[in-house]
C-alpha cells in the first residue's frame, strides 16, 4: 500500500539526472533491493543512502531518470528511503518503472526553482497538492490518472495484477 499523503524532507538534484548516476551499471548484477539501495545516487552523491534513510522526497529538474530502462534505478531509490519524486519532467521509462514498483512520481512544474534542500514537503497524491511547510509555497502537481493511482494504491504492478486476478476469481 502506498500512502496518499506523503511527508518528507527534500533532497534536491538538477536537470537530466540519468539512471547511470541513480544506479551505476556495475551494480545491475544485484537482485536484492537492499543491496541496490546501498548504491542509490552513487554517481552524484555517495552519501545519499545515509541521508535518505529516514525517508525523504527527492526533487529534480527536467528529464529526471533519463537513460537506460533499468528498473533497478527506482528500486534503489525506493529502498534507500525515497518516498516520492517530484520533478519538472520525467524520462518516460523511469516514470513507468517507478509506478510499476510503487514509487510515486509527480510532474510538478516550478517546484525545482523554489524548493531548497532540507525543506519539509507534504504531497497529496490524490489531489496533486504539494506544500512546502518550510517556506509556505504551494504547487499543483499534475494529477495521476485513475488507473495509475490504483496501481500505486496497491503498492505496484505486481500486487495490482495479483489483486485483479483474485477479484476476477
Amino acid at each position, binding site marked *: 500500500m502506498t500512502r496518499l499523503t506523503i511527508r518528507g524532507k527534500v533532497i534536491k538534484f538538477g*536537470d537530466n539526472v540519468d539512471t*547511470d548516476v541513480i544506479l551505476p551499471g556495475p551494480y545491475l*548484477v544485484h*537482485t536484492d533491493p537492499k543491496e541496490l539501495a546501498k548504491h542509490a545516487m552513487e554517481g552524484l552523491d555517495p552519501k545519499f543512502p545515509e541521508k535518505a534513510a529516514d525517508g525523504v522526497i527527492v526533487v529534480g529538474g527536467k528529464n529526471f531518470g533519463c537513460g537506460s*530502462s533499468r528498473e533497478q534505478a527506482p528500486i534503489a531509490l525506493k529502498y534507500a528511503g525515497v518516498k516520492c519524486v517530484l520533478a519538472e*519532467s520525467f524520462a518516460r*521509462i523511469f516514470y513507468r*518503472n517507478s509506478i*510499476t514498483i510503487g514509487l510515486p512520481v509527480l510532474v510538478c512544474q516550478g517546484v525545482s526553482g523554489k524548493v531548497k534542500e532540507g525543506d519539509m514537503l507534504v504531497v497529496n497524491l490524490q489531489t496533486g497538492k504539494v506544500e512546502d511547510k518550510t517556506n509556505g509555497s504551494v504547487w499543483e502537481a499534475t494529477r495521476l490518472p485513475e488507473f495509475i493511482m490504483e496501481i500505486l494504491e496497491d503498492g505496484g504492478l505486481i500486487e495490482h495484477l495479483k489483486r485483479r*486476478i483474485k477479484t476476477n476469481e
Partner: protein
Amino acid sequence: MNILEKILANASGKHQVSSGEIVEASIDVAMIHDLTGPLAIKSFRKIGAKKVWDNNKVVIILDHLVPASSIISANLHKIVRNFAEEQNIKNFYDVGRGGVCHQVMPEKGHVRPGEVIVGADSHTCTYGAFGAFATGIGSTEMAAVFATGKLWFRVPEVIKVNVTGKLQKMVTPKDVTLNIVGKIGADGAIYKGLEFGGSTIRDMSIDGRMVLSNMAVEMGAKAGIIEPDEKTVDYVKARTDKPFKPVKSNPDSVYEKIVDVDVSNLEPQVAVPHSVDNVKPVSEIKDTEVDQAFIGSCTNGRLEDLRSAARVLKGKKISRGVRLIVIPASQEIYLNALNEGLIKTFMEAGATIGNPNCGPCLGGHMGILAEGEACISSSNRNFVGRMGSTKSFVYLASPATVAASAITGKITDPRRLKEEV
C-alpha cells in the same frame, strides 16, 4: 494518421487513435537480456504466472556481460538460461550464438515493419529503423507482457525530423544523429515519437538508419521510426518467412512539430562530457587527449561502421598510450569482418578485438575507465560514470572519428588525419 498512430491503432483493434489517447496494444515480440531478464523472471513468478503468453514471441539474448564476467553475472545467465529452457523459448541466443540484442533482433528476423515490439532495454527503439513501433520498458512491465501479451501505451505526439543534403566524405549517420540530438536536446522529445525522413535518410543504408533510431531515446523519445521502403523490405524478407504489412504515414498526418536539418555542410560531430546533447563540431574540441577508443555497441558496431573505421586505420598504427577496443555487434558481423580482412586491419593497427557483446559501453567489463581517463567512443551515452570511474570522461563520435583519434591519441577529424600524422 501518422505511422505510429496507425501501428498502435492496428495493435489495439481500433480504426482511429490520436495523440494523448491511452490504448492497450497486443505485443508482437518481447525481448529480454541478461541484466533486465532476471528481474523480469522474478516478477513473472511473483505475479503467479506459469507460462509465457506465446513462447514464439519471446526472444532472449545474453549480451551485456558475455561471457560471464563474474560469479554474480554467471548466476544471472543461469537464471535466464533455465527460464528459456523451462518456457521452451526457441529464440534464445546464448553466448556465441548472437551478440548485441539490438543487432541480433533484426538480423535473426525478429523485427518486421508494422509490428509492436517491446524490449527490457532502452535502446529497443532501434527497430524503428524498420518501420516498427519499438520501445523500451522495465522488467516488471515485461513480466506483465510475458503473462498477458499486452501493454498500455499513451499514443505519442510526433515530431517529424526531415533530413536533407548529401553527406560529405567521412561524415556518417552517427554525425547526423549527434547533430540532431544536439538540436532537439536530451529532453526535447520526452514521451514523444520521432519520425525520421527526408532524402538523406532514404539514401542511408539499413545500418545507418539504425543509428538514428537507436539514439531516439537519448532525446527522451518513446520511438524513433523511419517509414519502410524497398531497402527495409529487402532486408526483412531475407531474414524472416513471417508475413508483414509495411505501414506508412498519410500525407495529411498531424505532427507536433517539423524539424528541418540540412546536412550538406555538416562536419563530424562529438558529444562531449557529460551529456549526450552537449554536441560540438570536431574542430572545436580537436586535440583533446584520449586514453581509450571504443568501436562497437548497439549504436555503431555494425559492418558499415567497421568498414569505415578500417578505411581510416588501414596500414596505420594507433598511438602509444591509447587502447583501441573493437567489438563487432554480432557473430554474423564478426565473421563478415573477418572475411573482409577488417579484423586483420584492426589487429595490425594495434587494436584489441572483443567478442560480440555490449562491452565497455555501460561500464560492465572489457575496458572500464580509471579516474581521470578519457575515452572516445562510438556508443550512445557519456553520462557521469557510464564507462567506469565517476571521474572519467566519455566523448561520443562516429567510428571513423574514433579510429582517427586512436591513431593520433587526441580527438581528430578523420578528414584531416593526413595533416595530423
